[in-house]
């Protein structure tokens, strides 16, 4: 019998995710222009985060459980003959001393490449999947907070009028709460005490990032009730905020009985579920909303959509670059950025980038990072004029920009530092950047520097500006201006050397002569 080949218009993709609480795998069938269908799904509970919390490493028992589980999952991928797959370990596992050993052993024993997925990218992938959800897109047209509680932290992302406003990551994950529970769990009012503590944390977010304005709805990813209680059949995806809070409280109440095995069998909660419930309770009490939507997506859908978008199988319904830019603007504005200058710089940088496209060898992602760097290049000024570079670096590195990985944030931060303090030799940054990233930083910095010099006075002196690359060694920048350009021209010569060092192109600043002027 002839073997049937799957059409070019269909791909099989699989994702494996080693999370804090277990390993999961999904196999997807992706049809060009069509939808994504799950054709297999496996999940194994392994409490890795507890191991890490207790001993700082993955226990031997769980180590081999992970290896064996991954082998089974790898076999499943082979069985389906998937076109591509990704296997990721969640970033929180980096806290385990023996994670690299695990990755190595998984490679040797299972022939599986396990990578660590950066926390921000993890969230970004989830967000990508979420953007396929019409209800979510509808909800973010109004003020809406996206909530994701993980083992090591809570991420809250505020949307307003369809735009991403702010993402903040608070380091109060379920594992921390679980540890607190162990410390005070014997007290009769432990739930109340912990709730107050968590409430305060959420209060800070509310005041700092939400400008005191309550959201209308909450969107929850990684359905907590489904994961932690046996009652996961027929759970409503959309519920009234008050009802949902009541339900969480009821589950929490039941968790007390669970210890004695007397809980209502329908809604018994696993011990590890309590921290999740406490966190959700605190969030919902501080941010009382009209609607709660439990989005039926996971990390896997995010990875699958990322694969589908990048292989042009499915068109993204949303411009994710827009989200990154809008979050960058929100961050810049928090630190009193001068909008006009930043916009000018962003525009000039992009024009410059596009003008030398044939020579810089950078992709569209680098173009996005350049835009973010332009918008955030001087955020540190808000904190300190004398230590601007350091403050800018710190702010960028520690702010969560949905859709930008921590590696990318580092690249942006260093480009901004170089802009303030000049280029550092590689040895000085080798701990943070590898050679490729270092060179990317230098390229971004060179563009940013030249663009910045054009608007050195922050007064947008020109009416029009043109960039023309001659195809060999010169880039002509022609400005249509009547103002004096003495300052810019003098600095420009110095900056053009830096630019030449990186691209072997000399930028030449020219002024368009206007009749009657000198």
């Amino acid at each position, binding site marked *: *019998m*002839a*073997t*049937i*080949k*799957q*059409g070019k218009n*269909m791909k*099989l993709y699989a994702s494996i995710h080693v999370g804090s609480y277990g390993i999961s795998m999904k196999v997807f*069938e992706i*049809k060009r222009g069509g939808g994504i*269908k*799950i*054709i*297999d*799904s*496996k*999940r*194994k*509970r392994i409490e890795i985060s507890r191991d890490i919390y207790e001993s700082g490493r993955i226990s031997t028992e769980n180590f081999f459980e992970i290896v064996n*589980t991954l082998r*089974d*999952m790898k*076999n*499943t991928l*082979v*069985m*389906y*003959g998937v076109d591509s797959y990704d296997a990721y370990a969640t970033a929180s596992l980096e806290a385990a001393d023996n994670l690299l050993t695990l990755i190595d052993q998984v490679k040797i024993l299972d022939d599986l490449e396990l990578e660590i997925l950066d926390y921000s990218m993890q969230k970004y992938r989830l967000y990508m999947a979420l953007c396929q959800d019409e209800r979510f897109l509808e909800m973010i047209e109004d003020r809406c907070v996206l909530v994701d509680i993980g083992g090591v932290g809570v991420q809250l992302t505020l949307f307003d009028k369809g735009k991403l406003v702010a993402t903040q990551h608070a380091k109060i994950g379920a594992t921390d709460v679980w540890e607190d529970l162990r410390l005070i769990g014997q007290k009769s009012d432990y739930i109340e005490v912990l709730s107050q503590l968590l409430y305060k944390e959420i209060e800070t977010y509310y005041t700092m990032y939400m400008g005191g304005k309550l959201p209308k709805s909450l969107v929850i990813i990684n359905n907590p009730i*489904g994961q932690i209680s046996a009652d*996961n*059949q*027929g759970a409503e995806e959309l519920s009234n905020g008050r009802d949902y809070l009541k339900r969480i409280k009821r589950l929490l109440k039941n968790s007390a009985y669970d210890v004695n095995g007397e809980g209502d069998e329908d809604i018994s909660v696993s011990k590890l579920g309590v921290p999740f419930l406490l966190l959700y309770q605190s969030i919902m009490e501080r941010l009382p909303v009209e609607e709660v939507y439990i989005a039926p997506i996971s990390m896997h859908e995010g990875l699958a959509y990322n694969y589908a978008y990048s292989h042009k199988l499915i068109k993204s319904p949303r411009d994710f670059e827009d989200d990154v830019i809008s979050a960058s603007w929100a961050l810049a504005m928090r630190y009193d950025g001068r909008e006009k200058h930043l916009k000018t710089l962003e525009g000039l940088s992009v024009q410059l980038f596009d003008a030398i496209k044939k020579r810089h060898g950078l992709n569209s992602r680098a173009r996005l990072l350049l835009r973010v760097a332009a918008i955030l290049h001087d955020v540190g000024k808000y904190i300190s004029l004398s230590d601007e570079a350091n403050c800018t670096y710190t702010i960028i590195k520690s702010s969560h920009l949905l859709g930008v990985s921590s590696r990318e944030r580092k690249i942006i931060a260093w480009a901004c530092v170089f802009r303030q303090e000049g280029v550092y030799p590689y040895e000085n940054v080798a701990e943070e950047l590898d050679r490729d990233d270092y060179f990317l930083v230098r390229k971004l910095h060179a563009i940013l520097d030249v663009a910045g010099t054009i608007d050195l006075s922050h007064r947008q002196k020109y009416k029009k500006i043109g960039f023309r690359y001659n195809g060999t060694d010169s880039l002509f920048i022609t400005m249509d201006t009547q103002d004096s350009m003495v300052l810019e021209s003098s600095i420009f010569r110095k900056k053009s050397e830096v630019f030449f060092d990186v691209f072997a192109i000399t930028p030449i600043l020219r002024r368009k002569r206007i009749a009657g002027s000198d």
Partner: protein
Amino acid sequence: MKFDLPQYYENRELSWLKFNRRILNEARDNKLPVLNRMKFLAITASNMDEFFMVRVASLKDMVNAGYTKPDMSGMNPKEQLLAISKETHDFYEKQYTTLNRGLISKLKNEKLLLLDSYNQLDEKQADFVDRYFEEYVYPVLTPMAVDASRPFPLIVNKTLNIAALLSNKKRGSRLLKDKKGESKKDVFATVQVPSGLPRVVEIPNSSGMEHTFIMLEQIIEKNLSVLFKNYDVVCAYPYRVMRNADLPIDEDDASDLLKEIEKQLKKRRWGEVIRLEIDDKMDSRLVKVLQKNLEVEKDAVYKCNGPIDLTFAFSLASLEGYDHLRVEEYKPCDNPKLKSGCNIFDEIKKGDILLHHPYESFEPVVDFIRQAAEDDNVLAIKQTLYRVSGNSPIIAALAKAAESGKQVTVLVELKARFDEEHNIVWAKRLEQSGCHVIYGLVGLKTHCKIALVVRREEDGIKRYVHLGTGNYNDSTAKIYTDCGLFTMSELIGEDATAVFNMLSGYSEPEKWNKLFVAPIWARKQFYRLIDRETQNAKEGKTARIIAKMNSLCDQKLIERLYRASASGVEIFLIVRGICCLKTDIPGISDNIHVSSIVGEFLEHSRIFYFYNDGEEEVYMGSADWMPRNMDRRVEIIFPVEDVSAKAKVLHILKVLMKDNLKAYYLKEDGQYFRYDKRGKKTLGAQATFCDEAVKAIPDQEKNYTAKTFIPIWGENVDIPIQ
């Protein structure tokens, strides 16, 4: 209103004994050919053996452990044992009356003679018997005498033995001492009747007979003096012991389940003796020796007025050349949708296919796996196996698939009672051929019958699923009535994948699209379906439940049925075996009717119907309404939604409910009765299904008997255009 009072429930053991009585009734049914009656008699005996080994043994364990909690009918273990003993003694009597007064003389009328005793042999026959003994029997016998230096030997479970008293002037058994401690004259000896030789031996014919038989133990008894040459045989009688076979397997402690079961099998022969069957004429001295040494109470001694272990009747029932003394053997027909040689996947693509065995052949199920094994586009085959036949074609196909590089996952349930040893062999064979074998789940028996084939097709991955009510056993599929469904429903396919992921320990299903899976979910779903009918009845709507199963003894489900009945739901139950529900209790179960069909085929399918205010729902599956199925086994109940498949199941239920030939009906006094058929048109469900299956095959495929031939003309032939 209370629905859980003990008087509303029948004891499950007594209900089972009633079921065995219904089978015995078949052996007593004059209208049935004699060899079929012999088979039914043998079935009652083999059933009884299992009942003792499992149920009686378990009750004995309870009594030994001091457990006194009453069952749902209010009887504690001791009371149950007492009632069982009374009933089974009576049953034994009836079995032997059936044999002696009915069957043996019926056989004789057909010129088939079974000699009672070696005393009835004529000279020629006696010579033959002695020669037979010398040539075949003597070499394999191990006679064992008991005295001071030779302790009482181990009598192996379920073996037939001969106990003898030997006169001995010099030596005496320590077991046969008188009050003064002096040896008596007689010696006790025992010899096992070899199980490797035929139990029924054909000998030269008595005059006027076509075949004459004698029991093997009679041949040995006749020649006992040859075994004990220095003794006189005072008397000799056969006996048989039954030991406790209900072995608890401590799975939590067993690091390797397989080894644990192998170990337990070795232990089985050492179990406590729970029944001693003896010849009713056995010398009282022999009875005493046996009772004392085997530690058997008087109640546990069963006197047999004829050959012990009536399973010997199976061999007579299958006697060659006597088909006229048997119901004509039914040959399963092809399902009209699955002609032989068809591509089964193409057919399933056209729509769900429902198979009704044994009326329809089981071959498509074997073909499903066989074709999958040979199909290059098949990526994986996953299947559960509970009891498979010897030399199973399914096992062969699975092994072949694994050898050709397909991913084959098989769950072989090692804990299938009495099949453990058999299953270990197959499991090992499958593993050697490269299958991924799961040896069951800790704490649960995997009883569901499901096979999944994952196939790569042009428009994506497709899943073909077979779900059944019976085992993947091509032999029993010819005698058990079961249903199976082939489907490529995406929703069921997703569920099937989830089931196998769950069985391999890699999934915690968050939702089921269509399947009810036990444990955890199935019980709740049944509650929901029953309660929905109750609610509809309360609202004045028509409400009806029809359920067919092998056994009904789950108190919580019965309670719900009572509640439904009390609310006005019309309930019809077709329960082959145990039924702990009582009918006609005023205000409790007035609306419940129970029937039980005992016929040529063993009723085995489980079908559940709910009227649902006109939106009828039909389910089938592997589970009975028993606590073990709901709580301690992995079971699957699946909906039948395809219009034609559903219509077929509804028809099956309709015919089963109309049966007035083979169906018994449960009366308010707990007894079963058959309708008086005089002057009425009779309808036997099994016979009806046989007829219908034959009629469903297009004429040209039936065995050709017509004398006119129909030519095929050119204009009727489609010639493919090149």
